[in-house]
Each structure stands twice: as structure tokens, then as C-alpha cells.
């Protein structure tokens, strides 16, 4: 499961710094917007080459927006997104790509796998057209070369015999087959970095595992770096070396997968983990500790984002700004006032909490 890819110089393949994305709420024709949804608020992380980072969180927390900014489908409001260029080895700032050649080079390096295999393919184009689209758009190779490349990729993702799939339409394929095609399309340019936006969430449970296994195999073989966006911790555990938990536009906890799952520190992560279903009828679920729903991220106050739902709130939480994401040892980063630098929990113990309620 873990891929110990050689990491050249230990340098990051993707480096996101202080990323911020604001969506204006009400924009009249002549009025300047005054309210903003803080979809992503000061997010920083790194992904090492060959590593896959899982971005976990509930809907509306900004994880998909992060992915879209990384592939330049949306523009960042502030901050920088560096993606290492395959050819030159330099970190290219995505937010400042201006020239056409730079953009072309970036599109070769970075690809995306979309959530919905039924909607992410044009129903009027054949599988060949869909997979060869990046080659066609960027004018790479002659038609026979493209055909050969597409056949090669279809074989690689397990659609065999590939020739029989070339000229089918998306509606003639099953969901799993379509997602394989989507993976083939993402890999046709030999990208170094792939953003996978919940690629298995729309699939039947029985075929999820085969798609995930395929993606892992390809990551191993081709040395692809993944940003894997999901809301499913089990999927993230299977796919990712590291997991970042997002809440309302902020990363609240980030650690290597097993470290995070075994020693969750942030109250939100703990609540998420307690909500994971366990296949045991006699298992008694610990009470989910958080209350209420996600608050709107419209002009949020400066204090901790989780304050309204956190059962452990103390004075320090409401009197100071949102806590920074600090390392608590073992490469375990948490953004919470109630976690000591040593990783020790400073908040109310569980028992006391039970008494109170």
C-alpha cells in the first residue's frame, strides 16, 4: 500500500502556500461585493513526488475547490501553488502562468480525474476521441501514433481488448469502465501530478476496490503524485500516504495516514473517525461528539472555525484567532489550542464531558 518512491532531494512535487479563495456572495451589476464565502482560507501543504495526499472533509469544506485551483480550473484569490515541471525540474507557480507555452507545459504535467464518470465524458464523442483529446488539443503525434497511444493506455487501465473499446460511446460502457477511461485520459500525457476528485464515490461499491487498486498500481508504475479528494476515510486510508482533514476552508489536521487514524488529535477528526461504520453488530458506537451542522463560511470571524460545533470550547478558543497548523511531532500537524506541543490533549476529558451533558 505504501509507496516508498525515491524522493529526489526530498523536494516537494506540489507546494501550496497560503492559498485563499473567496467567492463573492452578492454582486449587483454596479455594486461591489461586500460579502465573501471563504471557500479556502490560508491553506498550505506539500506533496512529495510519488506520494499521494488525501484531502478529507465533509461537503462544502473546500476540498474540491482546492483541487480545481491546483489544476487551474479556478483561479486562486491569494497565495501560491507550485507544481514541479517534469522537464526542467523547477517549481512553477500555477497562479502566475501567463504565456501560452507555459500553460501548455502545465497542462501536460497536471491532470484531473473527475467524480462523475457519467458526466465527465462528452456523450457524442467516442472513447478514442475522449482519451486522445489532450493529444489532439496539444497537437502531439500523428493520427496513427495517437491511436497506438490510446490503445496502449486502454490496455494499461485494463480495458481489453482495447481495439473493441476505441469506437464505442460512453453510454455503451458501465460506470467502472468509464472511470477506467477517465483514468486513461488523465494519464495519456504522462502527467507527474494528478488530482483525483472522489473518483470512486459515484461507483458501485463492488467495483470501487478494483479502480482504487488500478490507481495505486499506476502510481507505482508511473510515479504519479496524487492529490486524492474524498469524504471517505476508509478510501483515504487505502489510497493515501498522508491525510489532510479540512474544515470550513482550513486544514485542521494533517499527518501520515496511520498516525492520523491511530492518534487523531483535533476534535473534528475524532468526530469523523467515530462516524466511520464498523462491520460488527455488537459494536457500540461512541457518541458523535460534535453538534449542529456546518456553519456558513460567509465572512467568518477570526476565532477558531470549529468553535460553534466543538464540545470542548474554552476561553482561549474564543479570545484568540484561529490556531495555526503546528507540528506536534511524528509529522503530525494540528490546528487546535487544546493540543499541547507534545501532542497531549489539554481539553476537558471525555468523562467530564459526559457528566456535563
Amino acid at each position: 500500500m505504501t509507496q516508498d518512491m525515491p524522493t529526489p532531494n526530498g523536494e516537494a512535487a506540489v507546494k501550496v502556500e497560503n492559498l485563499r479563495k473567496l467567492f463573492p456572495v452578492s454582486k449587483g451589476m454596479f455594486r461591489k461585493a461586500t460579502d465573501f464565502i471563504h471557500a479556502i482560507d490560508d491553506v498550505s501543504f506539500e506533496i512529495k513526488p510519488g506520494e499521494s495526499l488525501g484531502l478529507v472533509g465533509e461537503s462544502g469544506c473546500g476540498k474540491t475547490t482546492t483541487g480545481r485551483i491546483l489544476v487551474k480550473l479556478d483561479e486562486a484569490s491569494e497565495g501560491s501553488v507550485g507544481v514541479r515541471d517534469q522537464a526542467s525540474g523547477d517549481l512553477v507557480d500555477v497562479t502566475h502562468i501567463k504565456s501560452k507555452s507555459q500553460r501548455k507545459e502545465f497542462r501536460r504535467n497536471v491532470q484531473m480525474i473527475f467524480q462523475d464518470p457519467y458526466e465527465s465524458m462528452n456523450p457524442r464523442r467516442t472513447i478514442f476521441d475522449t482519451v486522445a483529446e489532450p493529444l489532439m488539443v496539444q497537437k502531439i503525434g500523428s493520427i496513427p501514433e495517437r491511436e497506438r497511444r490510446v490503445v496502449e493506455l486502454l490496455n494499461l487501465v485494463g480495458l481489453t481488448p482495447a481495439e473493441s473499446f476505441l469506437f464505442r460511446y460512453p453510454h455503451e460502457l458501465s460506470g467502472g469502465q468509464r472511470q477506467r477511461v477517465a483514468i486513461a485520459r488523465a494519464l495519456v500525457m504522462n502527467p507527474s501530478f494528478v488530482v483525483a476528485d472522489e473518483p470512486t464515490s459515484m461507483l458501485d461499491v463492488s467495483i470501487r476496490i478494483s479502480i482504487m487498486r488500478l490507481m495505486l498500481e499506476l502510481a507505482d508504475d508511473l510515479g504519479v503524485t496524487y492529490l486524492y479528494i474524498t469524504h471517505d476515510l476508509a478510501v483515504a486510508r487505502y489510497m493515501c500516504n498522508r491525510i489532510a482533514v479540512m474544515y470550513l476552508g482550513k486544514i485542521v489536521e494533517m499527518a501520515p495516514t496511520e498516525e492520523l487514524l491511530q492518534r487523531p488529535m483535533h476534535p473534528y477528526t475524532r468526530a469523523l473517525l467515530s462516524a466511520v461504520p464498523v462491520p460488527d453488530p455488537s459494536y457500540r458506537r461512541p457518541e458523535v461528539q460534535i453538534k449542529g451542522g456546518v456553519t456558513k463560511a460567509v465572512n467568518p470571524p477570526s476565532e477558531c472555525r470549529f468553535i460553534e460545533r466543538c464540545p470542548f470550547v474554552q476561553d482561549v478558543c474564543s479570545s484568540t484567532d484561529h490556531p495555526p497548523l503546528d507540528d506536534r511531532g511524528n509529522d503530525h500537524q494540528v490546528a487546535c489550542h487544546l493540543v499541547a506541543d507534545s501532542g497531549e490533549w489539554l481539553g476537558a476529558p471525555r468523562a467530564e464531558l459526559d457528566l456535563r451533558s
Partner: protein
Amino acid sequence: MTDVRDTDMMGAEVLDESLWKIRMRLLWRSFKRNWALFSQSKMGVVGVVIVGFFGFLAILHPILMATAWKGQEAIYDPVIGADSVIVEKTVVTEVTDPSTEMSFTEAMITGEFFPEEGMIIEVPIAPAPPNAKHLLGTDPFGRDIFSQLMFGARAAFILGVIAATSAVVLATVVGSVAAYYGGWMDTWLMRQADLILLLPLLPLLIVIGSFWEIGLWQLGILIGILSGLGATAIILKSQALSVKVKPFNDAARVAGGGNRHIIVRHIIPNVLPLSFLFMMFEVTGAIFLEATLSFFGLLSIPMSWGIMINTSHTQGYTLFGLRAWWLLFPAGLAVTLFAAGFFLIGRAMDVVVNPRLRTR
């Protein structure tokens, strides 16, 4: 598994057939499938038969002019031909049947200054009722109605194709561009469409017709512009909007496609089925408009169904009841049937384009 990074592009051919041949086959296959769906509806088949019939008439005219009517252009030309059908009439005091009898006064007008009862006089008549020489009779100027009808079918096809094509091409592009770019581009194009919708079509064309000579081509393009930038653009824009939000556009962008690539390869192909549908309805509108304008005599077209009705009207035969039915009925029926044919095809195509309407 091989590392695809290092595989060379040279090697044996993957497909033994060239790409365009395969595409043609796919196109043919989808055409057959769509035809199967289309032919399920009786309406559509009736429409195709009607339109096919007029298509046959339109092709028949030049063929007849070149073969059976060769050398008789002076008689059978739809515009400048003329033929006087000679009928023998008996002079009587009391006229009971005007087609075989005439009064003394009428006889004197023909040049017989001393008519007698029972005298038989040969007179040329126009309009002449249907006879062996003129299958649908002649008009008040002695021109062959059947020839005019066939010539009018050709005019109707030319006008319909020009109007529908130009309208739908314009509307598809305008709608897709407005939907894709949004913002100012959208506002500008859609307010322009609203403005055009505000203009009353017929009075506008009458005004334009009084300034410039409007022929078939000009009329077709005028209708195309007015409709393509107006109502049809708004409808196709709504379809383009629903295509625009599909994730495959994002996928194309990630693949490196620019705005033009996405509009041409992803949005327009998904709007096209609806465009084809509106092409059919566009033909109906154009034919009706042509008939109306011709009836008012505002077009400079040599001959059309509208002009045939206009002739019947201006020569005073429209209020004649059924006495000169061959002047009014063939042309009026042709306009109605032709428009109905395309409308029926459009309705049946709706089922092909819109899967929700399918019964199975």
C-alpha cells in the same frame, strides 16, 4: 506493465482502417438508429412523404421543361408562357350555363357584330379549367397552373433551406457563445435578441421590402438573421447553458483545450440535435412568411405559391367561390401541406432528440 513514458511511438499499425472511414461508419450507424426511432412515429413518416412529394415536383419541373415541354416554353413557362384555350359557345337569349353559352352582348364583344340565336362562336378563355393540355388549368393570363405549382415548390425549397440554415447556424453560434462566456457577452447578445423579438416581423419586412428589392435569397437570409439572432438564439442558448455546466467541459479544459475548442467540440455538438429540430420549424415559418409577403406583392420573385394566390386575388377570382377553384386551391393547399410536412418531421424529430418523449 510497461512504463508508457519510454515507449517509442514507432511500431505496427494499430488499426487497419483509416480513421475517417470508421467515423463515417459510426455516423451511418447512428443515422440508422435515429431513423429507426424516427420512423416509429407515423407523423414523421407522413411528413417525410409530403416533403418527398414536393421534392419530386420540384425536380420534375426542369425535367418536363427539358423533355415533354421542350419547344413549348411559350406555353408552359410558369412566368412568361401563355396559352389560350379555345371553347365553342352557343349564342342564346337566356344564359343558363356560362361555360357553354353566351349572351348576344358577349357575342358582340368577341367581334361577331350580328349574332343570331344558336350561332356557335369559338372564344379563347382564361382562366381555363383543368383539361388534358393543362392538368390544373390556366391562370387569368393563360399560364399553366401545374407548371407554376412545380416551379413554386422549387422556390419554397430554396427559401426554406436558406432561411433555416442561416437561422440555425447563427442561433447555434450566438446561443453557445452567450451561454459559454456569460457576463457582458451574454447580456449584449440576449438584449439584442429581445430587441429583435420586439420588432413585428411582417411590418418590418414590408418596410424593408419598400426600400430594397427582396428576392428569394435576400428573404431567406433576412428571415435567417431575424430569427437566428432572435427567438431561436434564446432557445438554443438555454440548451447550451445546460451543456455548459457538464463536467466534460472542465475535463476538456484540463486536457488543455481553450475556449474555442470547448465551444466547437463540446458545446455545439450537444446543441446541434435541438438546432436540427428548430431547422424544421424554421422552414414552416419561412414558407408562411413568403406566402404572406408574396400575397401583398412585396417580393421580387418570378413565381411562387404566394404569387399564385396573389394573382388569383388581384384578378378578382378569390371571391368567385368554387367557380375558379384551380387558381386558389392548388397553391393554398401546397403552402399548407408543405409547411405541415416540415412541422410533422420536426415533431417526430423531437422524439429522437428528446429521450424523455420516447415510448420505449
